[in-house]
């Protein structure tokens, strides 16, 4: 079989091909490394390519397959968002602060996926410290959307999404603090899944906002999302917020039947902020779920309009605390002309962090400072409790909540960089799931002006399987996810 078209296959297809010996893991890795060589100069999706390691791992995978010792994801190539620590490999988090940082250890996500047999092709570009919705805050320059290079692929997992959409890798890991997996997935015609808070270990995942951050996957099909999530989910004693809850076999349990499924629709999600054609595509997707046996139910989330302001107190507060570890002393960037220790801290951080990261550290410092803590941080955590309670009540009555992932399709690079609030409002539909710790998924559901649109599904805690099933069922009857940007076919 020719290896020219291996980049067009999904994880599930490649898994079958490797098992059938249609091609080898080395041929597969070589084919994708050649794709990266040919296309990444345009996309800027990858910050580091680990070709040698990938080929070594692929040779070992071929040996295992030959010996009948193949593991669950043996020989399947992926890229990791550069927020995950990778032992012996540069890990930058998209920041000048970590430009030369070589991690001394692997994140649990990285080690679990390696133990399952995956092969790392490289590390994906991202907004600096995952703070951004357009990938434009990366120290290494923006990622370009394969559907239109003048547009952003979204962020912060923009490199992961562009790599998958541009067929440089069949799948990628990502992280999602306010929408950073789902928004780029929607804007690039890929599937993005953010699991329940605590479902996937945060150990070795560079912290942004610890009570919101969760690792997940970006893939081309729902089946692939189920496969990959199965390889990384589960309890980890090294993450004190990891939850010990059984991990089902998501892939084998995929189920198309939607009869009796109750799908909640939130009125506020279809208000004025939603671009008209995006809304029409999402409504059509909801209608399809209905014809497949689901019942659409109106749902009220009375406090959901406060989710973005709540997030922009909680997330910066936690980020200002988390990023205090970057001191120019133990690791990371160090200014070379400091007068004293205090000056060393201030200058190293001033030089190492970009503008958006600085804004969030300052916002967080402000809302946590003496005299303001109650008015902002405590208040936000109270509103957060109200929002979580709204979801709890809603899920007493429905199985999933469905709506748009983003208010518009991909926007042009540079279009929203002047005003932080305009950029923040990109995540208006996705942030609620992070605040309440709920799993959520974006699945391709149409195009507007040649740019992809995503359907957003939110479930109750640990309802990943339900989300995957709904999206799987939807993909059985649609072909949006098979569409590929012309230049990357």
């Amino acid at each position, binding site marked *: 079989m020719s290896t020219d078209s291996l980049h067009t296959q999904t994880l599930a297809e490649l898994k079958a091909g490797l098992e059938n010996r249609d091609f080898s893991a080395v041929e597969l890795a070589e084919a994708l490394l050649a794709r990266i060589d040919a296309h990444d100069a345009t996309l800027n999706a990858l910050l580091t390519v680990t070709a040698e390691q990938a080929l070594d791992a692929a040779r070992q995978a071929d040996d295992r397959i030959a010996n009948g010792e193949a593991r669950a994801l043996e020989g399947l190539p992926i890229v990791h968002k550069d927020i995950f620590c990778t032992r012996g490999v540069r890990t930058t988090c998209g920041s000048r602060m970590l430009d030369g*940082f070589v991690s*001394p250890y692997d994140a649990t996500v990285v080690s679990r996926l390696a133990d399952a047999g995956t092969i790392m092709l490289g590390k994906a570009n991202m907004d600096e410290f995952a703070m951004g919705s357009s990938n434009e805050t990366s120290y290494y320059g923006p990622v370009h959307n394969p559907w239109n290079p003048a547009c952003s692929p979204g962020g912060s997992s923009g490199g992961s999404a562009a790599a998958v959409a541009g067929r440089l890798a069949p799948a990628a890991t990502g992280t999602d603090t306010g929408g950073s997996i789902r928004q780029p997935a929607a804007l690039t015609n890929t599937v993005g899944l953010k699991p*329940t*808070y*605590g479902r996937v270990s945060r150990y070795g995942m560079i912290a942004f906002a610890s*009570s919101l951050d969760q690792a997940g996957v970006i893939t081309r099909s729902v089946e692939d999302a189920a496969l990959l999530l199965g390889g990384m989910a589960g309890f980890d*004693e090294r993450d004190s*917020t990891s*939850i010990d809850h059984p991990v089902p076999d998501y892939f084998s349990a995929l189920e198309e039947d939607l009869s009796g499924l109750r799908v909640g629709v939130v009125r506020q999600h279809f208000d004025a902020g939603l671009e008209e054609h995006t809304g029409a595509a999402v409504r059509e997707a909801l209608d399809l779920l209905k014809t497949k046996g689901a019942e659409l139910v109106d749902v009220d989330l009375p*406090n959901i309009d*406060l989710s973005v*302001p*709540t997030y*922009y*107190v909680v997330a910066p507060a936690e980020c*200002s605390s988390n990023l*205090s570890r970057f*001191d*120019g*002393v*133990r*690791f990371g960037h*160090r200014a070379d002309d400091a*007068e*004293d*220790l*205090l*000056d*060393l801290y*201030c*200058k190293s*951080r*001033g*030089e190492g962090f970009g*503008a958006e990261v*600085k*804004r969030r*550290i*300052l*916002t967080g*410092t*402000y*809302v946590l*400072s003496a*005299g*303001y803590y109650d*008015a*902002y941080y405590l*208040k*936000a955590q*109270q*509103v*957060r*409790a*109200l929002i*979580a309670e709204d979801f709890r009540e809603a899920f007493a009555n429905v199985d999933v909540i469905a709506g748009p992932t983003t208010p518009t399709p991909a926007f042009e690079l540079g279009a929203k960089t002047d*005003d932080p*609030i305009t950029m923040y409002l990109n995540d208006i539909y996705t942030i609620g799931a992070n*605040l*309440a710790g709920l799993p959520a998924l974006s699945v391709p559901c149409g195009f507007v002006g040649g740019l992809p649109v995503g359907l957003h599904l939110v479930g109750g805690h640990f309802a990943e399987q339900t989300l995957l099933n709904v999206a799987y069922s939807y993909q059985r009857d649609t072909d949006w996810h098979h569409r590929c940007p012309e230049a990357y076919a």
Partner: protein
Amino acid sequence: MLDAPRSALLNPITTPEKPVSLDKDQVRHIAMLARLHVADDDIQETADKLSRIVDFVDQLSKAPTDGVTPMAHPLNASQRLRADSVTETDERDRVQENAPLVRDGLYLVPRVIE
């Protein structure tokens, strides 16, 4: 060095009707608290953008939250504890490979005590 007056933050910030506005001295003070150098040329823009953000999040002040317990964990889980035993091996040398300046296993910083 950044040495904004401490009093800069003591003024009451906001009433819900009035847009919140941070001035340059406040930004300098917050930057000092955050140990973050902000160039003089960037202070005004930083103040403007922070004012936008703080003004935006200030809409929370209108939310009725009397008696609401602030969220501590999204799944109401309690903090798991582990036995107080050594589980990590000594990897000082490998960890210090990332340090900007070390000597004899020690991290070097500018002189603190004259």
